């Protein structure tokens, strides 16, 4: 079976299952009121979720991207990502990170050295 984004059943199944799942998660503790106390340990583990999953989106999309800049071994997106990581640590600005990142990639791909 192949999944196509243009397939309505596929798209709406994703939307409604994600609605049901996400709303259940968001509503769960509110509905149970304070009958359940979440332990500090659980909170600690949950706080690692972004660190565990978001890099797994970022890294392969850049690493396996069909490179355009030969002098960087086709890994120009990796180079830009590492650069903007430091930029973000310095500026803490989402807007600056996205704008500088896109501009840097544009310059690298349009004017390869």
């Amino acid at each position, binding site marked *: 079976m192949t999944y196509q*984004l243009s397939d309505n059943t*596929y798209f709406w199944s994703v939307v409604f299952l*994600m609605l049901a799942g996400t709303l259940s998660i968001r*509503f*769960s503790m509110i509905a149970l009121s304070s009958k359940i106390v979440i332990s500090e340990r659980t909170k600690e583990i949950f706080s690692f*979720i972004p660190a*565990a999953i978001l890099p797994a989106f970022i*890294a392969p999309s850049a690493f396996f991207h069909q490179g355009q800049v030969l002098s960087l071994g086709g890994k120009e997106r990796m180079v830009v*990502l590492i650069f903007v990581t430091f930029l*973000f640590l310095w500026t803490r600005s989402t807007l600056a990170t996205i704008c500088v990142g896109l501009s840097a990639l544009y310059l690298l791909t349009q004017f390869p050295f």
Partner: protein
Amino acid sequence: MQVLKSPFFIKGFRQMVPITTGVIPFGAVMGTVFFNAKISFVKAMTMNVLVYAGASQLAAVELMDKHAALIVVVLTGLVINLRFLLYSAGLAVELQGASWGTKLLCAHTLTDQSYAVMLAHHDEFKKKSDAIEFYLGTAVCMLLVWHASVVAGYVFGNFAPASWNLDFAVPLSFLALVIPTLKNKTYWLVALFSTVVSILCYSMPFKTGLITTALLSIALAIFLTRKKEV
């Protein structure tokens, strides 16, 4: 509609305005991704209103675009949204005794941003209802900015040339989301581990590399933060 005139609602709304400047580029990226994936405007906005969880939507659209299996798309999205469980617990005390309608509304509008603002002003309220009105102010502000920026991104994606590589804005915005959560070396180590493992697991069948990476990384986090027996 009485709540819209409440001073607490207005205060919450105002507190949220500067924070939403960080949401605008993220929403714009979401809109562009919807457009580039050739999802119609109506479908895109319906998903946006119903699911209302940016990071998981971006992940889901990206996976659907790569023909990932339904279960993989949904599970990946829900793992990203598991953090809302904590926020839900955080709001539970304030919402004790509120109507089910209010509870449901507050639950659906829970976001990283409005929860963070709520947490920061937590001690300022004498009554639970004041706290809820404040929270709703933050939530409504967030809702308006998010949907407006997704619409703007969708329209803009329409005429941006391919050479601008707008798809690259997705990893960039994820980067801006993840870095603030890396509070110490352990978090950085888990993030680095996730980076390497995700590249190694990339070619796993049915796009399961992502969820595998997430589970392995959480296992590493549990191991690294275990309490040492004396």
